[in-house]
């Protein structure tokens, strides 16, 4: 594979896949008899991809640390959206305060979930799949808690910035989407830097690599599992807070969001951080291309995405960058 040396180049590997996904969608679109608005598709794809990458990052972090498939991830995202809505609209605080409070409260929720639910069950159960039942139970619980606390209505917050960026009618993008997209990219970069250079980040990467060895080196598993879970929940909450300003948020979004996150993690490889980023951008790009190119054939974008995912996984079961067998 010619791409392999490229991957080794540290930082670049995170972004080479973004480039690759853009390139592929370009090539794909060029094969068509008509010429869709490529630039627009790519900008939309990048914008969606940045959001998706953030969701997938959290899911993959939890998986790599604890081998738990967090069914409740989409619900955490929905709670983040509702928290942002409540703080910014109901309490009239500025948007950035609302976003931070959503992140903080979700981090607390994540830490509680890990400490009181996942940790004891992991220690007691014979087969580690048992945590999936727990995760599903937590997903149901959070769904009902959202219903009781925030109601079933679709909620949104007023636009943060007005105006539309218009580059000669080639790329048309509202300013708030650009802002949110950039914020998402910034958070992804911050997260990578945290995992790369901080003490906690190093400990978590060590745990993901080899639990026993990390423990022998004096890494406190309980402590860093909790930090990891809290961090993942925080990421989900922040994405919810970002997207509530554009698409709004409602109760039913939790499940489908989890499914999308699973797909991204599968594309990139479970438990690998650059893989989650790549998966997020690739799915965002595929969705953006599919919604434009396949719109004449009805609502089959996800059908096509899934079919290609199956073929891809048949050839490469561990995803782009995953360890074999997760």
């Amino acid at each position: 594979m010619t791409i392999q040396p490229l991957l080794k180049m540290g930082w670049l590997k995170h972004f080479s896949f973004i480039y690759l996904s853009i390139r592929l969608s370009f090539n794909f679109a060029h094969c068509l008899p008509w010429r869709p608005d490529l630039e627009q598709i790519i900008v939309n794809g990048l914008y969606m991809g940045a959001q998706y990458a953030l969701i997938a990052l959290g899911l993959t972090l939890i998986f790599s640390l604890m081998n738990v498939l967090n069914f409740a991830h989409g619900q955490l995202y929905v709670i983040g959206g509702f928290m942002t809505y409540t703080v910014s609209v109901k309490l009239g605080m500025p948007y950035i305060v609302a976003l931070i409070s959503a992140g903080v409260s979700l981090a607390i929720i994540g830490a509680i979930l890990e400490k009181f639910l996942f940790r004891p069950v992991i220690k007691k159960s014979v087969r580690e799949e048992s945590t999936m039942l727990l995760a599903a139970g937590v997903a149901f619980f959070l769904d009902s808690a959202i219903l009781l606390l925030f109601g079933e209505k679709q909620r949104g917050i007023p636009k943060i910035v007005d105006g539309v960026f218009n580059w000669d009618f080639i790329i048309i993008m509202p300013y708030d989407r650009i802002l949110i997209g950039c914020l998402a990219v910034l958070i992804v970069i911050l997260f990578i830097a945290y995992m790369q250079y901080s003490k906690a980040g190093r400990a978590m990467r060590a745990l993901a690599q080899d639990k026993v060895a990390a423990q022998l080196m004096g890494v406190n598993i309980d402590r860093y599992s909790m930090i990891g879970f809290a961090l993942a929940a925080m990421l989900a909450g922040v994405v919810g807070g970002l997207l509530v300003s554009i698409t709004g948020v409602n109760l039913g979004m939790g499940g489908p969001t989890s499914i999308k996150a699973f797909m991204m993690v599968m594309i990139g490889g479970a438990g690998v951080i650059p893989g989650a980023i790549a998966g997020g951008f690739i799915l965002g790009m595929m969705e953006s291309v599919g919604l434009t190119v396949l719109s004449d054939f009805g609502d089959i974008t996800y059908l096509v995405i899934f079919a290609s995912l199956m073929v891809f996984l048949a050839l490469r079961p561990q995803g782009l960058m995953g360890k074999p067998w997760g």
Partner: protein
Amino acid sequence: MMQLRTKFFAAAAFALFLLFVVPMVIEISGRWDFYYTLTSVALLSIASAGVWLTFYIGRINIGQGAFALFGGYASAILVVKYGVSFWVTIPLAGLFCVLVALVIGFPILRLRGVYFAMVTLVMTEVARLTALALPITNGAKGISSIPLPGSISLFGVILVPDFSTLENVKLGFYYVAVVLMLLTFAGMYRLVNSRVGHLCRSLQQNEELASSIGVNIANLRLIAFSISSFLGGIAGAIFVGISQSIYPASFPVKDSVDFMLNCFLGGLGYVFGPMLGTLVNYFGWDLLFSAGEYQLLIYSTLLIGLMLTLPNGLLSIFSKAKN
């Protein structure tokens, strides 16, 4: 030998209880709605038994809803468009699912752990999208007003009467579902205690090791997955017969997750786990209906509590007592 006989008697007693005592109790108490509930439990536990079998080979299957949907559509299309008898469509629906399982299973059964779980989960969602997109499934409108099953006669002797002439259709379906459930679990018990069952267990523990001593793991995985899908398909087909309609949203992701939860609830190490799990799950949910808006809250709290106290399933109480 003695033990075998007691087991046989226990099974026979259980069958008699379901076929005669339960209907009698329902007649006396007049709670006719219980027929429908128990029929659903029986059918859901057939599908869950399939999921349990994939657990038995060490795969987490969250795609049974897709196969129930495929089976349901296969039966509905055969009955409505081609005029095939409903009873014939049940095995045909199962076989159709086996075909799908072989095609899909060949690539995806190479996946393990969460990868397999995630692929099957996505598959459930895709089955719904396929049903929405294909012309033969009639899109979001689905297929409705499917006729009730007709009669079966062998050499002029009517074995099963025409369901549209039945006084109590619910009782008819109850018998069908219970008989099928008993057959399914008898078959499962036999399978698990056979040579193939032991080989399946070796897959659950270590595939490489099993393969190294000459077990054909690829075939075995496909066989287990096909049986699982077959069970999902026939359960879906009978559900369609009962509700006389099917829509793309008939078996959503929630159902797939429920099939998996049933297995967990009962216990992954026990053949009859899915049966108990389905019963508890379904009735638990129904009983909590009176809690109104707090239904899901209480249900999920109980689920979490159960996980904290009995992470290895309800049936693990008995094995604990033995120890």
